[in-house]
C-alpha cells in the first residue's frame, strides 16, 4: 500500500515534468525562439542621412548635424553611487529620474540606455574626457535633422515625425522601418521618398557579455537626394520676420515660371522641436494652440478677398464688353438697392470714376454697378477663369481650394435663391467668396504676365536634375484688358490718391491692389496683391494680415518692406 502511494507520486512527478517540457519546447517554442534570437543577434544601424535642402542660391536651409547622446551600460558601471551622482550633476537630471530611466529602458544585458539625448557639445566633450573615471558611461554621436531657419521657413519645408502603423504597412516595401522619421508636411512630406536615405547596418552575433562573436552581415547606408528649392532663403527669412507677432501670410512668386521665392505664415513653429527628444510638450503645445501655428495660412487660410477681387470684375466687364475703360459711374458714397443701402468705403464719395480711377481708388460704388450689370454667373465664370475655386496645384500639396459661389451653387448647397444684394456684396469680394493668398498670387501673375498662369512650385532641383515645370495655363485675357488693369494698379501705388501708396519704393515700379475684407469678428482682414516691376514683372506677391484693418496700411507696409529688401539684398529684381 505504502509502496503503491510512493510509486504513484513518482509517476505523477514524471508526468508533470514531461508536460512542462512539452509546454516549453512545443507550445511556447515561437516565443522562446524569438527571445533566443534577440538574445544573441544585435543590429547596429547605420542610419541613412536625409538629403540636404538648399535654397535657390545654394544656401543650406535644412541639413544634418552631429548630436551627442549620453548613454549608460548599467552592467559596466563600477561605482553606482558616484556615477549616478556625477551624471545627475552634469546633466541636471535628478538621480531618481536617472534610476527610473534605467529601470524602464533596460532590455538586454549590456544594451546601452540613453539617459539624455542631444546634450550640449561642451558637456559631451567633458564627459568624454572623464571616460576613464566613469566606466559604463558613454557619449554616442548621432546625426539629427537640423532646420537652420527654424520657425522662419517651417511651413514650406515641413517637419518630421515618427512613422505610424498605417504608413509603415503602406511603405514597408519601400525600405521604411519602425523607427523611421517621415515628413509630416511641406517639402519634407511631399518629397519624402527622395529625401529619405537608405539605412544600412551590421548584424552581429554577440555572447552573453555583449562581446562580438562574429559579423553576420553588413550593408552600407546611403544618403537621400539633396533638394534645391526655389525659395530665396534671405527673402524667406525676412518675410517671416516681417509677419512676426501677427496672424498673417505672405507669398512672393516669380510670375514667369511659378517659382515660389518666399512663402511665410505666422504664427509659425520650429520643426527642430519635433525631433529633439524630450520636447514633446512643446510639440503638443503647437498642435493645441488656438493660433494654429501649424497651419500654412498661405495655402490653407481661406478668406473673403475684399477689394482685391475687383480686378476679376474689371477683367469680366472688359472681356464681355459690358464696360469699357471709359465707362463712368458717379460715386456719391453710397448705393441703394431698393431700400437697402451699400456704402463706399469713402463715405463722402469719389465723385465720377472711370474704370482706372475706380481700381486706383478702390471705389465700391463703381463695382456695385459693374457687378449688377455682369450678374453673379458671369462673375463666378471669370473668377474661375483666373484660377479661383480650385487649388493652384503647388507641389507641397494639401492646399485649400477656396470658394466661388453662384446661384446654382447656392440652390444646390443651401436650397435658397440668390438675392440681388448678394451680387452687390460679391462685386467687392464679400459674402460667401473665399480665396487663399496663394490663389490671389496666381491672379496677380495672370495680370502681370498678360494671361500666363504658371504652376506654383517650390522645388527647383532634385539632386542635379532640374524638375520639369508644366507649361503655364493660358487665361484668355486680351492685351488691352491686362494693360488697363495693370496701369490702374500702378496708379494705386504711385498716385497720391491711390490706396496702395504706402508701398511705394524709389526706383521700383509696383502694380498693386489693396483689399479690406469684412471679417466676422474683429477688424477686417487686410490684403495687398500685386507685382513688380510693373513693366517687366519678376515677382508677384500677396500679403494678407488677419484682422489687419485697412488694406492700405498693414498689408501694404509689409509688402513694401519685403519688396525693398528684395530690391536691396537679393538678385530677384535684378
Amino acid at each position: 500500500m505504502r509502496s503503491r502511494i510512493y510509486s504513484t507520486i513518482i509517476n505523477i512527478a514524471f508526468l508533470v515534468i514531461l508536460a512542462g517540457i512539452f509546454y516549453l519546447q512545443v507550445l511556447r517554442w515561437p516565443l522562446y525562439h524569438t527571445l533566443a534570437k534577440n538574445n544573441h543577434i544585435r543590429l547596429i544601424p547605420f542610419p541613412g542621412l536625409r538629403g540636404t535642402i538648399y535654397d535657390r542660391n545654394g544656401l543650406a536651409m535644412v541639413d544634418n548635424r552631429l548630436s551627442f547622446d549620453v548613454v549608460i551600460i548599467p552592467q559596466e558601471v563600477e561605482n553606482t553611487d558616484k556615477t549616478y551622482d556625477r551624471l545627475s550633476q552634469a546633466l541636471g537630471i535628478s538621480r531618481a529620474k536617472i534610476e527610473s530611466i534605467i529601470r524602464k529602458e533596460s532590455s538586454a544585458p549590456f544594451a546601452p540606455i540613453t539617459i539624455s539625448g542631444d546634450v550640449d557639445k561642451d558637456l559631451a566633450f567633458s564627459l568624454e574626457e572623464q571616460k576613464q573615471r566613469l566606466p559604463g558611461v558613454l557619449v554616442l554621436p548621432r546625426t539629427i535633422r537640423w532646420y537652420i531657419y527654424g520657425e522662419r521657413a517651417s511651413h514650406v519645408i515641413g517637419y518630421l515625425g515618427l512613422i505610424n502603423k498605417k504608413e509603415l504597412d503602406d511603405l514597408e516595401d519601400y525600405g521604411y522601418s519602425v523607427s523611421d522619421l517621415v515628413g509630416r508636411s511641406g517639402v519634407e512630406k511631399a518629397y519624402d521618398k527622395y529625401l529619405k536615405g537608405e539605412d544600412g547596418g551590421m548584424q552581429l552575433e554577440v555572447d552573453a557579455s555583449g562581446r562580438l562573436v562574429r559579423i553576420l552581415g553588413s550593408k552600407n547606408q546611403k544618403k537621400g537626394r539633396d533638394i534645391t528649392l526655389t525659395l530665396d532663403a534671405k527673402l524667406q527669412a525676412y518675410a517671416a520676420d516681417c509677419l512676426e507677432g501677427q496672424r498673417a501670410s505672405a507669398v512672393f512668386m516669380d510670375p514667369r515660371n511659378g517659382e515660389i521665392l518666399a512663402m511665410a505664415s505666422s504664427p509659425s513653429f520650429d520643426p527642430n522641436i519635433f525631433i529633439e527628444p524630450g520636447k514633446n510638450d512643446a510639440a503638443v503645445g503647437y498642435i493645441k494652440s488656438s493660433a494654429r501655428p501649424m497651419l500654412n495660412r498661405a495655402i490653407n487660410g481661406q478668406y473673403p478677398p475684399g477689394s482685391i477681387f475687383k480686378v476679376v470684375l474689371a477683367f469680366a466687364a472688359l472681356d464681355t464688353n459690358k464696360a469699357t475703360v471709359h465707362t463712368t459711374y458717379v460715386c456719391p458714397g453710397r448705393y441703394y438697392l431698393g431700400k437697402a443701402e451699400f456704402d463706399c468705403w469713402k463715405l463722402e464719395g469719389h465723385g465720377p470714376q472711370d474704370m482706372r480711377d475706380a481700381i486706383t481708388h478702390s471705389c465700391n460704388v463703381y463695382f456695385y454697378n459693374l457687378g449688377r450689370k455682369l450678374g453673379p454667373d458671369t462673375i463666378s465664370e471669370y473668377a474661375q477663369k483666373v484660377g479661383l475655386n480650385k487649388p493652384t496645384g503647388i507641389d507641397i500639396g494639401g492646399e485649400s481650394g477656396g470658394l466661388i459661389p453662384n446661384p446654382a451653387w447656392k440652390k444646390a448647397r443651401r436650397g435658397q435663391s440668390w438675392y440681388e444684394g448678394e451680387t452687390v456684396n460679391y462685386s467687392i469680394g464679400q459674402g460667401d467668396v473665399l480665396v487663399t493668398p496663394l490663389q490671389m498670387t496666381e491672379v496677380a501673375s495672370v495680370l502681370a504676365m498678360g494671361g500666363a498662369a504658371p504652376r506654383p512650385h517650390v522645388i527647383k532641383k532634385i539632386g542635379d536634375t532640374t524638375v520639369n515645370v508644366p507649361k503655364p495655363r493660358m487665361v484668355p485675357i486680351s492685351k488691352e484688358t491686362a494693360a488697363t488693369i495693370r496701369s490702374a494698379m500702378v496708379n494705386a501705388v504711385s498716385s497720391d490718391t491711390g490706396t496702395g501708396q504706402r508701398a511705394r519704393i524709389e526706383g521700383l515700379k509696383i502694380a498693386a491692389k489693396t483689399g479690406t475684407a469684412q471679417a466676422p469678428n474683429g477688424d477686417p482682414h487686410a490684403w495687398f496683391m500685386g507685382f513688380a516691376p510693373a513693366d517687366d514683372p519678376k515677382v508677384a506677391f500677396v500679403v494678407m494680415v488677419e484682422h489687419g484693418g485697412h488694406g492700405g496700411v498693414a498689408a501694404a507696409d509689409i509688402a513694401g518692406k519685403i519688396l525693398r529688401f528684395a530690391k536691396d539684398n537679393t538678385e530677384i529684381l535684378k
Partner: protein
Amino acid sequence: MKYDIRSKGEFDYGLVLIVAVIVLMGLFVIYSASYQKYVLSGTNLSLRQLQSAVIGIIVAFALFRIGYQRIIDFGYYIFGLNVLFLVLVLFVGDMRYGARRWIEIGSFAFQPSEFTKVTFIFALAKYLGDIKEGIERPKALVWPFVMAIVPMLLIFKEPDLGTALVFVPVLFTMLLIAGARLKYLMILIGSGLACAPFLWFFLKEYQRNRLMVFINPNLDPLGAGYTIIQSKIAIGSGGILGKGWLAGTQNQLNFLPEHHTDFIFSVVGEEWGFIGSAVLLFLFYRLVGKGLRIAETTSDIYGKTLAYGIVTVFAMHIIVNIGMVCGLMPVVGIPLTFVSYGGSFLITSIACIGILENIKNKRKVF
C-alpha cells in the same frame, strides 16, 4: 510475476544499460556545454567526467562484491566518519563559487556532502533494520531525526541548500517504508512546516532571492532571475528537434550560467530539442522504475529501506533538477544524476547502482 522469474537472483543488465546510455549522453552534453572552454584552454571536462565514471564503476563493482549487508554492519561508523569530514570541510574546505564544499587531497578534490547522501541511507537502513517493528513507537523516530538533522545543518552551513534538502524526502520515505506510524510522521512534517517561516531568516540573501524570483522571475531579470529566464529560453528555443549538438546559441554564447553542472538539462533541451529531452526523461523514468521494482520485491528490511533510500535520492535529483531548470520549481542547486558534470556525485550515483544490483542479487537468498 513474470518479472520475478526472469531476474531471479540474477543481475539486471537492463538497469546497467540504461545507466550506461545516460552517462554516455551526459558525456556528449558536457562536451558541448564546455566546448567554448575546451577551445580556449584545452580543458576537456567530458574526459574528466569519464575518469570519474570509471572510478564509479570500480567502486560499484567493489560494493557489489562486498555486499550491502556487510556495509550495513559498519553503517554507523562510515556515516560517523562522513559527518566528521563534513565538520572538517567547514574548516579546511576549499572555497569555490562562494561556498566551502570541497576537500582537497593533492590534486584530487571531493565533496563529502555528496557521499553523505549514501552513508546516511546505510546508517538509517541499519537502524530501521535493527529496530524492526519498534519503529511504530514515537520515541523510535527521534534517532533518525537526529541522524538527518546533523548532516543537514552542516551541509546547509557550507552553504548547499539543495543537497541539505535531499535528506528530507529520503528520511520520510525510509521511515514510511519501515512502517512508522503515519500519525507521527504527519506530526513531524507538520512541525517541520511550522518551522519553515523561521527558516527564512537563516537563508542567505541569494537563497531568498532565488525563492522570490521563482514566484516572479521578472522581479530581477538581470540578477537572480537571469539564470532561470535564460534557462527557459534555452529549453524553449530548442523546439521539437533542437538546434543540434554544439549549435545551441544560449549554451555556446554563454547566456546560461552553470550550464555544465546544475543547468545541464537546458543544454539537452536547446541542442537536442523535445525529442532529446523526452528520451532522456524516459530513460530516467525507466531507471527509477527498475530501482523501485528492486525495492518493492525485496523482503529484507535492510535491503528494502536501503533500496528505497537510493531510489529516492535518484528521483529527487531528477525531478527537482529538471523541474527547476524548466521553471517549475525554485532554483535550489542540485545536480542532475549521471549527467551533470561533477565527480563526487557521479561516483556516488554509479556506486549506488552497484548496491542496487547487489540487493537484487542477494534478494532470493533469504
